[in-house]
């Protein structure tokens, strides 16, 4: 049984049919890369999993059970964390405050619930240590962190809250080479902890490095799924640009 399964997902925006029956299965503990040309429907497909869109037809199963997400929040409570390109961290808050944002532990002070900052601090330090992360845990705010460090905070958040599925939407898009390595390492780390990771990317070299399997989308469908070690850039590009299975074999 797959951890997360999308079957026959259709989605149209007005007259434009963006998804034409997407089938995709994600296993626990794997990094599944999702590639495709611009407009192939990667982001739209992923937003169904994140609870942003609802499918016109088709269904999503999480651990074998059919799920319908009312909202991103709902998806999150069911264990699906999405790390968006724009990262969605609150700049004014510390690393710990961001990791716990919206789910702060509280303790009673004169009967009033107050945010338990000591707990947030110690948990954050332990978490960052566990990730062998280079984020200074005591940084006053995340505003001064680099793109890779911010990405790491977002991933750490997913890890801490025991997400079952983590969707990374082009996590290395704006990063320097060293930082890119770190994010790839963190993605592998998530998978090693048993999380199912969907990794959207453009850079095929990176994709082949990070992924266990690669799913190629073309014009609103998943046209090819292959183990990373059994494919190469040329093959992936062929599928991305619309070769059929037969043509790809022949070529």
């Amino acid at each position: 049984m797959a951890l997360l399964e999308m079957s026959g997902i259709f989605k149209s925006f007005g007259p434009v049919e963006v998804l034409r029956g997407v089938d995709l299965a994600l296993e626990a503990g794997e990094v599944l890369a999702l590639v495709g040309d611009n407009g192939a429907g990667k982001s739209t497909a992923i937003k169904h999993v994140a609870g942003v869109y609802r499918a016109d037809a088709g269904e999503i199963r999480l651990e074998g059970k059919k799920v319908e997400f009312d909202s991103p929040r709902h998806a999150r409570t069911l264990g699906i964390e999405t790390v968006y390109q724009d990262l969605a961290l609150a700049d004014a808050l510390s690393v710990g405050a961001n990791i716990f944002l919206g789910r702060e532990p509280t303790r009673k002070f004169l009967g009033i619930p107050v945010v338990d900052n000591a707990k947030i601090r110690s948990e954050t330090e332990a978490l960052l240590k566990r990730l062998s992360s280079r984020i200074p845990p005591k940084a006053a705010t995340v505003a001064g962190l680099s793109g890779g460090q911010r990405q790491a905070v977002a991933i750490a958040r997913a890890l801490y809250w025991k997400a079952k599925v983590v969707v990374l939407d082009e996590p290395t898009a704006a990063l320097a080479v060293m930082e890119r390595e770190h994010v790839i390492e963190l993605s592998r780390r998530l998978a090693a902890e048993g999380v199912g990771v969907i990794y959207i990317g453009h850079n095929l070299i990176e994709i082949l490095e990070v992924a266990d399997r690669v799913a190629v989308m073309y014009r609103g469908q998943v046209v090819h799924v292959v183990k990373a070690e059994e494919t190469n850039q040329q093959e992936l590009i062929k599928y991305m640009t619309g070769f059929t299975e037969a043509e790809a074999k022949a070529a």
Partner: protein
Amino acid sequence: MASAPATTPSGPAVADEAQASSLRHRLPVEIYVLGFTVLVWVGLGVFSRYFLTAGNISNMMRQVSIDAIVAFGELFPIILAGIDLSVGSVAALTGILFAMMLAAHLPVLLALPLTVALGLLIGLINGLAIDRLGIPAFIVTLAGLQGFRGLTYLVSGGMTVAGMPSSLDLVARTSIAGIPTMFVLMAVIGLVSHFILRYTRLGRYCYAIGSNAESARRVGINVTQVTLVCYCIAALFAAFAGMLLVSRLTMGNPNAGVGAELQAIAAAVVGGASLFGGRGTILGCFIGSVLFTTIGNGANLLGVSSFWQMVIEGLLIALVVYVDNIQKKRQAGVR
């Protein structure tokens, strides 16, 4: 998958060092403003014999109390990256209605909760217009600035309201352990506000929304609720200030609180708040209020024209924001 080196040469050591040096540079702007305020005190103490007398000090403490309470309220919308331009007019409207109720021989214990309720209602209207109708806070509360002032003139006929019960100025005139009662009230309101901002989820969500409303929404924070609470606090504190003014003047004055919103915003900004949201503290607001009160008081004592006072205050706001920006840049440089 290639495994990246576990610790690179630029690993934890560098990060720690950067952190330490950024701590050194991260003296909050409040400290500079406080230092400057103390300098002004010393200067005024030298140039005016009257400045450091007990009478003048307690007078200043009363004056700063009202200004600071308005500024504390104003801080909440500012942290949200919003603004409340209506607080001066709300103080006037609630004050005048409070005075009229007292003049009509309503007991204080009835007039007070009614005024508080009115303040909350106004805050609710502001907050709903901003959050539900999606009108920018600046516009909503600009309308309030004009509208509530108009209502104040309408209900009072533009006249002051006299005939307050003799017990009313108790709050304004008495002291607790040598500290003016008004100042104590202000301190309590300030402490409660500080507690909310610093230690509760609500406070944390204010900063989160102010720095990235979308991310706050995505993690499931109820942005509408927090917005409503913040504008209610701003209006409520304005109502407190309105009532205290009535107590201090022992009459209702429809011209009360003209320009109070700008003074409050200036105090918050001088105290380290950012109009782009996500930053600001109660302590900073208080220090900012003290600075402006000091300048006003000192200028009066030295016979400086009130027009020059406005010029000085304007320059101060510009200077403080400039210093703060330099600081932020320096901080970013050492990250």
